[in-house]
């Protein structure tokens, strides 16, 4: 098994963009992010579209795809979608990366090559840093796992609707999101 490349967050931040754009840093370990498949990108597009419309109406925050967040000294993650609410949304510097606080909601569309150990560690990092919910979309089984805390995981399938008290009035049909990738 290949040994992992390690580096500090500070060193990661200094990497030229063309090197770091496909990487995340997970507790000092470099993780490659695979290029998104059409399926992956279509799911994100459907979700982004739904969230964009929601925040145009509600104006209480926003959703940003594919932007880097800094967690402590040695972690830099790029959730497929990040929702920032209220003050977090207002105070985020639009011209700076990484964003130095935790998103309120982190959304990950799981890639075919993503390892269980990495996705579980990422969830742990998001929640420990103050992210209130993590949503993981699993394209192969068309399930969504909603994490609301270390001990709260709710699985949703095609018949279910994804809604959250964090986005009052928002209802996302799980089936519709996955069907967008057909």
């Amino acid at each position: 098994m290949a040994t992992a490349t390690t580096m500090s967050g500070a060193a990661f931040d200094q990497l030229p963009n063309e090197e770091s754009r496909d990487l995340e840093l997970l507790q000092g370990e470099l993780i490659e992010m695979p290029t998104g498949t059409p399926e992956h990108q279509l799911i994100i597009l459907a979700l982004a579209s739904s969230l964009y419309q929601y925040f145009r109406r509600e104006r209480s925050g926003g959703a940003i795809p594919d932007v880097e967040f800094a967690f402590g000294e040695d972690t830099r993650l790029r959730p497929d979608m990040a929702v920032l609410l209220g003050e977090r949304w207002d105070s985020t510097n639009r011209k700076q990366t990484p964003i130095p606080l935790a998103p309120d909601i982190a959304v990950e569309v799981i890639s075919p090559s993503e390892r269980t150990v990495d996705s579980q560690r990422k969830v742990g990092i998001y929640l420990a840093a103050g992210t209130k919910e993590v949503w993981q979309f699993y394209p192969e089984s068309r399930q969504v796992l909603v994490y609301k805390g270390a001990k709260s995981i709710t699985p949703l399938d095609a018949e279910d609707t994804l809604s959250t008290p964090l986005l009052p009035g928002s209802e996302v049909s799980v089936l519709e999101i996955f069907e967008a990738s057909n």
Partner: protein
Amino acid sequence: MSGAAFDQLPYEEGRRLELIEGEILTVVRPTPNHQSAVTVLLGSFLGYFGVEPSGWALSECEFALGEDDRLGPDVALRLQERWSIHEDRTPIPVPPDIVVEVVSPNERTDDSLRKIQIYLKDGVQEVWRVSGVTQQVFIHRAGPIAVLEINDILSPPLLPGWEIPLRETFRVKRQP
């Protein structure tokens, strides 16, 4: 390929395959940590079923869960029967009651969620996903997923009188 065709594949030493919805997956040889958790659990189940012979637990046996599904869980439990009734057949033509899957370092999470979905759809009552790296156990069944952490004790209602602390499963010494 179909389950029927899969069942006809010639036996080959060292070949470890599974079939999920007609798709062949290669199973890699497990790491020591993986087998450590499997061994601890199997040993514990052996003690339980030895005293109370109302079921059995085996590792690496293949089950025909659906027409085109052939899966070999790390540990499978059948309750309320003796294993001899299956007459040493492979694949075993009934679903396990409980499946234990220990997370491998390189396993793909999308594949393993897909397997869990198939297990639950095809008659398995509970799937326990044992994660050594995060020292957690996840219990998948209908409804929310239960999460156990390192100081918790796994004591499933399906196995009355049986329990195991997670520290024991992961061979973690208690802090002095």
